[in-house]
């Protein structure tokens, strides 16, 4: 287990967040605080708003924040462009990574990495230096360098796409990584590779939010906190055993919380 730095400021603080798309309310007052080194899991049924929460934190243009705020490294990022958020260290691992035909994965990774490095006032990498860096990171997710010459995510299997996401996380070295159903569509071996990659990349300065339906990812990466979402709200927060209880009792069990609350 990593050492907690609770005495420092939170990396991410979502404060009573309300958001909608096409005037349809999706988030109805979500609050969450992530400190350095912490791993949070957000669980809930399909359509409860957990993926939306991740997209809103990353700045997806289809959603409007109607109330509340997102503070990242003690700065309100509500109105920042997605690329500004990414450059400053917010990473979203996509549930369905997007295919970009004709754009080489290597070039994409390089431009992306350099955008982050530029923000960090680090030297930008030329093609040769970047290839050295990326080869080292490929090891983490056991990817073959042949992936680099293909178009971004095009023709990748589900598992390859997810590993490509984790590769990007490794290259961008974010302050907060929100991984949206990174475990979905993975067989057991691929799940282990992805989980071990995430563990190797994580450190005591980074916060991680795992969005998932299932316990099996949490068996590999033990969360410090588990939040249960329902209808755009976090209805219960607990430790890692909450996920186990959920696994045992199913989401029906959480319907009672709503009634209780």
């Amino acid at each position, binding site marked *: 287990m990593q050492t907690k730095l609770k005495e420092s400021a939170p990396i991410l603080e979502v404060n009573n967040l309300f958001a909608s798309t096409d005037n349809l309310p999706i988030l109805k007052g979500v609050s969450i605080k992530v400190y350095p080194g912490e791993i949070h899991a957000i669980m809930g049924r399909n359509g409860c708003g957990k993926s939306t929460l991740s997209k809103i934190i*990353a*700045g*997806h*243009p*289809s959603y409007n924040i109607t109330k509340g705020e997102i503070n990242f490294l003690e700065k309100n990022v509500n109105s920042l*462009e*997605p*690329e500004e*958020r*990414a*450059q400053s260290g917010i990473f*979203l691992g*996509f549930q369905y*990574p*997007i295919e*970009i*035909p*004709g*754009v*080489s994965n290597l*070039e*994409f990774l390089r*431009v*992306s990495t350099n*955008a*982050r490095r530029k*923000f960090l006032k680090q030297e930008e990498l030329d093609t040769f230096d970047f290839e050295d860096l990326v080869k080292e990171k490929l090891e983490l997710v056991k990817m073959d360098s042949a992936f680099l010459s293909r*178009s971004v995510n095009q023709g990748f299997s589900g598992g390859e796409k997810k590993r490509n996401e984790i590769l*990007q996380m490794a290259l*961008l070295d974010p302050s907060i990584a929100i991984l949206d159903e990174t475990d979905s569509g993975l067989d057991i071996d691929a799940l282990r590779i992805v989980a071990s990659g995430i563990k190797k990349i994580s450190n005591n300065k980074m916060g991680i939010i795992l969005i998932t339906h299932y316990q099996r990812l949490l068996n590999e990466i033990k969360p410090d906190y588990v939040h249960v979402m329902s209808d755009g709200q976090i209805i219960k927060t607990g430790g890692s055993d909450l996920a186990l209880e959920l696994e045992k009792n199913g989401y029906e069990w959480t319907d009672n919380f709503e009634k209780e609350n």
Partner: protein
Amino acid sequence: MVNENLVKDVVKEPYKYGFVTDIETEKISKGLNEDIIRLISSKKEEPEYLLNFRLNAFKKWQQMKEPNWAELGYDEINYQDIIYYSAPKQKEKISSLDQVDPKLLETFDKLGIPLTEQKKLTNVAVDAVFDSVSIATTFREELAEHGVIFCSISEAVKNHSDLIEKYLGSVVPATDNYFAALNSAVFSDGSFVYIPKGVTCPMDLSSYFRINSGDSGQFERTLIIAEESSSVSYLEGCTAPMFDTNTLHAAVVELIALDDASIKYSTVQNWYAGNEEGIGGIFNFVTKRGKCLGNRSKISWSQVETGSAITWKYPSCLLLGEESIGEFYSVALTNNLQQADTGTKMIHIGPKTKSTIVSKGISAGKSKNSYRGLVKMGTKAIGAKNYSQCDSMLIGDQASANTFPYITSQQQNSEIEHEASTCRISEDQLFYLQSRGIEFEEAVSMMVSGFCRDVFNQLPMEFAAEADKLLALKLEGSVG
């Protein structure tokens, strides 16, 4: 949607070549009739056969109708309201570059085509055409050492009359179509290239076409002849000032490749496209055709079409020689109210002829972008093959893309393959790239370049970089 507006901003591009050169010009009066044609011909001191060629074309043109089958809408062109000859005034006959008006040299300098000895591009010979006349051709002596002739078509008429008489109009007959007939009647200048037997042209050849006057049309004519086992790569660039009237450009390009010869013809067309409301811009009606006369000859067209209010052009190949090869690689980008109807014709006549068509259309704004292509297998085209791929990309929700493939085959033992696709730059793709720290504009231009990669790979090196930059410019908004 937030991003929709952003896309609109991004594709707004300031036209960098819109300046006008203030220079004294010699213009003839507006209008078109036999006397005007005689006047143009006499100004150029042409031999009789050429005057007859013009008059014959004019006669036929008068009986022809302007074609209306293309997906284009524009106000009727008043052919009597156009000046058919406009040339910068030269004090005397010039024999070297030092005598060219510095203003003209400056103009081409500004366009990135320096012509003077000290500054000229090192790897490319350039023929610079300003309105109706050729201003200068670089590297002529060096090319002559290899027997390569590279000069303006007017000079070729004087010095290589046998070649002109033999080949002019042999690929695109004077009466081929409405605009070709018009060009044949009034063409003023253009480039001429002759590569002798067995010679690989030691450098790329290039023509740069500049329209300067607002009320003159430009009607240039290019003729390239590649003798047996020779090869040449030819580049063509075009720009024009911004006027709020439309200027007519009707060119004819003819290529002839004999046994084992190869011609690669690349165009970056960036004529003024008109403003956001569709006012002004060049009407670009061009007939380009290559004849693979010899066995195993090859003609390859690649084009990057980004300008003009109206583009109507179908660079084509007549594949006569056995095992001859025709290629067409095209990127056409339209924005605002631009309209493009472009594609190719691959006419397979000889046996075992092969053709490849790769067309990428990108439409933004309210523009209309159509691919129109004909693949024809004649009765003798045994074992002939064609592969066509036509992809369209839409940016925003007000642009349109069409594909009109025409296929006819009179030979069972031939193959035709056609693939087509349409895609849109999706909000999700943009968000994905942005969420990796890539700026919005760079994300759009990355995707557009990616979409065009198959075509860019076919362009000569210098041009590929220029084309990529040009597209990025078109897509980069105020930053450019």
